[in-house]
């Protein structure tokens, strides 16, 4: 009892000891914040990666793919049908994207993915990342009339404005075609003319309806006439629909400063849904030929993983197979490069991967889980978290030495009291208990306050980042870099418990040596101590 009373009194009267646990407090708070933010980032990233990729991907080693997706899917079902929720075939091929902004053609390498609009949404969160609410419900490669989001629906209405998106859609496409036709009629003699440049408003330029139809010498594609040409001759009809990675067609632009001094951005679109772009990709077969065509953007894909947002383009799989010559003309059996597999909840992806890989020859097929696909990135983040944790825990350990030193001081200062207690019959264990209880109390207090502070910081992290940004004049968390609008922080109770327990343990451990010293103190010498 006296142990508790005395350690409580020491806690209340020795403020110097409180100073020594400030570092424990800060260490605990920092660890909680760092872990929460890292956990948030990792979770967000994993979610995104997982949302983009299906649970398990079954691929051929060649981009020319394998024959007969249906046969393969049946085979996979035979092997592990009861673990699989859905499957969809895809064709993935590298491609070159071209579109015209102002007078300039922009060329970008992209990853062109042929997807089955019916089943794609079943294997991943694909639909979730689209910009038209109806497309999020059911994807269609038909251009919508209007109604695209004018802000990032994942980040909420307070995110960067996307004013141009208000115009996007079929109506925009018609108006553009109208004005082009009108301009052509005004500026060129009837008959033939080079494709006029439409007056580009709002930073977005409208590519001519069919730049390849005209005799435009600057046009690198003019030598080959697209099959699409006649379909959308007038510009009223759409070409094959295309979902474009949002970072391929837009960029954020600073439009001023907010009241608090942090820069304010707006998304500027170089192309909008309704505009046409040109894609060139290799055909299947030996040697590969370049196939190209005009496509109409029907939506933007925004996964917030900049790696994907700046490279993915999606089009209907059947059309891609046709254009690449992947369909056997006689049997109509098409080739695909990969099958995306969605697992039932609770199924172990790696086990399924191994099972499938055992059945399909690894020379021809690669089976991987989504984690495998991004293992380097995920491992890097994990490593980073681990190292940060070690460093921060060392800080707390250093705080432990502070506690040790101050405890020694207090034990020396309390020498006489220790002698008195022993003369009153307190045992060495009892005296030790006082200081251990004191260490425990300090540890609990320090890490408790640290936990509170840490959790508060996590809860207020975005506000704090804003304030810091305002003070330093530079945003701490730049959404342009991370593609998140706010810092994702997830508190993992398990981690928090560990951190707090670790800090308390360090405080107690640090008090063990001084406590032993106090316990060993000779009562007479302690009483004689001045």
């Amino acid at each position, binding site marked *: 009892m006296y142990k508790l009373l*005395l350690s409580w009194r020491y806690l209340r009267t020795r403020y110097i000891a409180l100073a020594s646990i400030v570092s424990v407090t800060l260490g605990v708070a920092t660890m909680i914040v760092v872990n929460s933010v890292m956990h948030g980032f990792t979770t967000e990233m994993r979610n995104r990666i997982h949302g983009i990729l299906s649970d398990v991907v079954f691929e051929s080693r060649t981009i020319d793919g394998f024959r007969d997706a249906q046969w393969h899917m049946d085979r996979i079902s035979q092997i592990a049908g009861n673990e699989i929720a859905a499957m969809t075939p895809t064709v993935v091929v590298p491609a070159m994207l071209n579109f015209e902004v102002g007078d300039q053609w922009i060329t970008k390498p992209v990853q062109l993915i042929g997807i089955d609009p019916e089943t794609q949404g079943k294997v991943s969160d694909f639909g979730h990342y689209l910009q038209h609410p109806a497309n999020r419900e059911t994807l269609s490669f038909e251009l919508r009339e209007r109604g695209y989001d004018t802000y990032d629906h994942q980040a909420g209405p307070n995110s960067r404005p996307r004013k141009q998106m208000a115009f996007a859609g079929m109506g925009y496409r018609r108006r553009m075609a109208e004005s082009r036709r009108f301009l052509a009629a005004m500026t060129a003699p009837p008959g033939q003319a080079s494709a006029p440049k439409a007056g580009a408003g709002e930073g977005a330029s409208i590519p001519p309806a069919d730049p390849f139809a005209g005799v435009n010498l600057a046009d690198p594609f003019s030598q080959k006439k697209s099959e699409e040409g006649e379909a959308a001759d007038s510009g009223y009809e759409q070409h094959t629909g295309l979902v474009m990675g949002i970072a391929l067609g837009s960029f954020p632009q600073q439009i001023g400063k907010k009241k608090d001094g942090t820069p304010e951005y707006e998304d500027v679109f170089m192309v909008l849904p309704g505009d046409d772009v040109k894609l060139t990709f290799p055909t299947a077969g030996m040697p590969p030929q370049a196939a190209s065509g005009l496509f109409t953007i029907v939506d933007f894909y925004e996964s917030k993983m900049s790696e994907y947002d700046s490279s993915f383009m999606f089009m209907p799989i059947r059309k891609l197979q046709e254009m690449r010559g992947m369909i056997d003309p006689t049997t109509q059996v098409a080739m695909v490069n990969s099958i995306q597999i969605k697992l039932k909840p609770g199924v172990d992806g790696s086990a399924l991967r191994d099972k499938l890989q055992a059945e399909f020859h690894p020379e021809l097929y690669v089976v991987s889980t989504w984690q495998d696909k991004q293992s380097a990135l995920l491992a890097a983040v994990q490593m980073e978290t681990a190292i940060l944790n070690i460093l921060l825990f060392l800080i707390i350990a250093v705080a432990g030495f502070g506690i040790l030193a101050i405890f020694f001081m207090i034990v020396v200062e309390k020498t006489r009291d220790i002698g008195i207690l022993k003369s*009153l019959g307190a045992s060495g264990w009892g005296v030790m208990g006082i200081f251990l209880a004191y260490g425990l109390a300090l540890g609990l207090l320090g890490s408790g306050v640290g936990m509170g502070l840490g959790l508060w910081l996590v809860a207020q992290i975005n506000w704090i980042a804003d304030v810091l940004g305002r003070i330093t004049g530079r945003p701490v968390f730049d959404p342009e870099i991370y593609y998140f609008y706010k810092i994702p922080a997830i508190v993992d109770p398990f981690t928090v418990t560990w951190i707090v327990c670790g800090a308390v343990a360090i405080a107690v451990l640090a008090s063990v040596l001084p406590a032993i010293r106090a316990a060993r103190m000779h*009562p007479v010498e302690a009483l004689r101590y001045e």
Partner: protein
Amino acid sequence: MSDGLSPFQPDSAGRPMHSPLHFSPEAPAGQMLEDASEREGGLDRRRRERRGPGVPACDGSAAARGLFPREDAGVDAGVHLRRDPPVQLCAVDLKKNYQKGPVVIPVLRGVSLSVREGEMLAIVGKSGSGKSTLLHLLATLDAPDAGEIYFDGQRVDHLAGLERDALRNRYLGMIFQFYHLLPELTTLENVLMPLMIGENVWGYVRRRRQLRQTAAGLLEMVGLGHRLRHRPRELSGGEMQRAAIARALVGSPRILLADEPTGNLDFASGREILELLHRLNAERKLTIVMVTHDPSIAEQADRTIRLVEGQLEPGAGPARL
């Protein structure tokens, strides 16, 4: 006021003990007194015979007769002394050296003494003669290099640490020149300290009210009833010493060891303290061993012994009967 003086009646329930393990932390007060009778004869007699004349007897059997001395408060001092009260505390040939590097400083060179129950013994001597050292040995705060110490006929100097702690907690009360109150605690808490040490948390919490009453009663007795919540630094020297006495008494000790209790006090407060000690000695039959400088104080004791260079001066004043 007399029941304020004996807040605890010794607990007679317990198992018989045959060894010095007697002062185990669990052993209730009073138990060892019962058992002491079993040790009559044998060892004790032999030891007595070994001693030369003038060396006090460490008579365990006598201790047995003094069973529950606080209960016969009605017996007056004269009767008590006529019955030749038993020896309560007894030291045989105590030696204590301090080693300073290669130099051995002999502080006590064979001190033998015995204290009878209810006696008030004064130890006088020059500064540095080893009075405090002797008192610490008697209080089992330190172990002698040679010699034996008996408490109620039980040898206590070689007890294990925890048993000595329990002995100090239950049967010995100590007061010091510099009061030695714990500065973080209030007066009441300081007085409660021995009880807190003796009880575990649960026992203390359960009996909290009663224990606090005991402590408050003692503070009342020493005239500090109005100072319960004060910190020691808010008290005068005399008040602090009175609080220290209350603390020493709260566990109903059998003997009070005082190291210059008035050494740091002015004359008036010193006399108050002495009066208090005398009252305790007379009313409670509390055995008191008191170290002092002051011959006038020593005179008031039943008996005075003088330490000279680590040895008892031969022909120290006899007990004043």
